C-alpha cells in the first residue's frame, strides 16, 4: 500500500487543518471589527446548517430522492417535526420519532 509513516503525517496535517478551522474565528473574534451584516448573518447558521443536515437524511434513500409514503424515514421525520412543533420537547420528539420509525417499519 505504500503507507506507513506517510499516513501518520497525513492524519496529523488533516487534524491540524481541522482544528485550525474550528479555532479560526473563535480566535480572531474581537481582533477586528465585524461588519453588522455579518453579525446578523450568523444568526442564521443554526437553522441553515441543521436543516441542510436533516432534509437529505429524511428524503434521500440509497442515493436518490424518495418522497413516497413508503419512505419510513420521511414519515417518521414528519411525525417528529409535528411533535417538536407542538410540544417543543426534545426528548419527547426523539422518542415519538423513533417509535414512528419502528411502527412504519412494521407496517
Amino acid at each position: 500500500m505504500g503507507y506507513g509513516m506517510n499516513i501518520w503525517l497525513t492524519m496529523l496535517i488533516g487534524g491540524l487543518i481541522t482544528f485550525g478551522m474550528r479555532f479560526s474565528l473563535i480566535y480572531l473574534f474581537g481582533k477586528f471589527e465585524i461588519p453588522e451584516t455579518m453579525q446578523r448573518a450568523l444568526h442564521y447558521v443554526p437553522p441553515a446548517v441543521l436543516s441542510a443536515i436533516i432534509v437529505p437524511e429524511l428524503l434521500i434513500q440509497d442515493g436518490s430522492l424518495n418522497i413516497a409514503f413508503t419512505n419510513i424515514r420521511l414519515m417518521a421525520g414528519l411525525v417528529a417535526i409535528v411533535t417538536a412543533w407542538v410540544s417543543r420537547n426534545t426528548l419527547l420528539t426523539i422518542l415519538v420519532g423513533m417509535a414512528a420509525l419502528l411502527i412504519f417499519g412494521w407496517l
Partner: protein
Amino acid sequence: MREAKKFFWDGVRAEIPLLIGVFPFGMIYGALALNAGLSAFASQMMSSIVFAGSSQFVTAQLVQDAAPGFVIILTIAVVNLRHMLYSASLAPYLKNLSLKWKFLLSYLLTDEAYAPSIIKYKKEGVNPFSHWFLLGAGFSLWFTWQVSTALGIFLGTEMPEDIPLEFALPLTFIAMVVPILKKRPMIAAAVSAGITALLAYHLPFKLGLILAALVGIIIGTVLEGRKPLWGTE
C-alpha cells in the same frame, strides 16, 4: 464550581440523544478503517487526531483507494469547512474565555457539540459558566466517539448491518431546529437550506451541505434586512 459542574452535566444531558445516534457511526467507522488497510492503532488515533466523523469515513475510503496524502489532506479540509461556520457562530459567546479554553473548546467543536450549545447560548445568553455546557457536550461526544471506534475496530466485520439508532441524529436535530423557527426569515433560511441540500446532494466532499448552509444564511439575512416589520418580533 458547583455552578460549573451543573452546566457541564447539563451539556452531557443535552448530548445524550446525539451520543446514541453517533455510537453506531463510530463503530462503522472503526470497522471500515480497519478494513481499508489502516492499522488498529492508526484507525483509533484518527478518531482523536482528526475527530470529525464524515472526514474520517472519507479518509478511510481514500486510503483504501491508495490516494496520495495531499489528496486526503485536501479532502479532509473541504469536508470540514463547515466548522468555520460553527467557529464564527460561537465566537461572540466565547470571546471572554482564556486562550486555553478556546483551544480546548475548538478541538471539541463538532456538529453534535455545536448544535445543543448554540441553542443553549441563544436561549440563555452568556454567563461565567456557560462554556462548561459546551465542554460537557463536546467531551461526552469525544469520549463516545473513542469508545465506539474501539468497539468497531474490535468487532471488525462482525458488525450488525443496519442499526436504526442512527436515526436518533436527525431526530435530535429536528427537536433542536423546529422550536427556533419562529420568525419568517428563520423559516425561510431553514427551508431554502433544506431544498438546496437536496438539489446539491450529489456534489462531492459535503460541498452540498456548505452550499446549502450559505444559501440559507444569505436568504435569512436578506429577508431580515429588507422589511423590519416582516417578522413577528
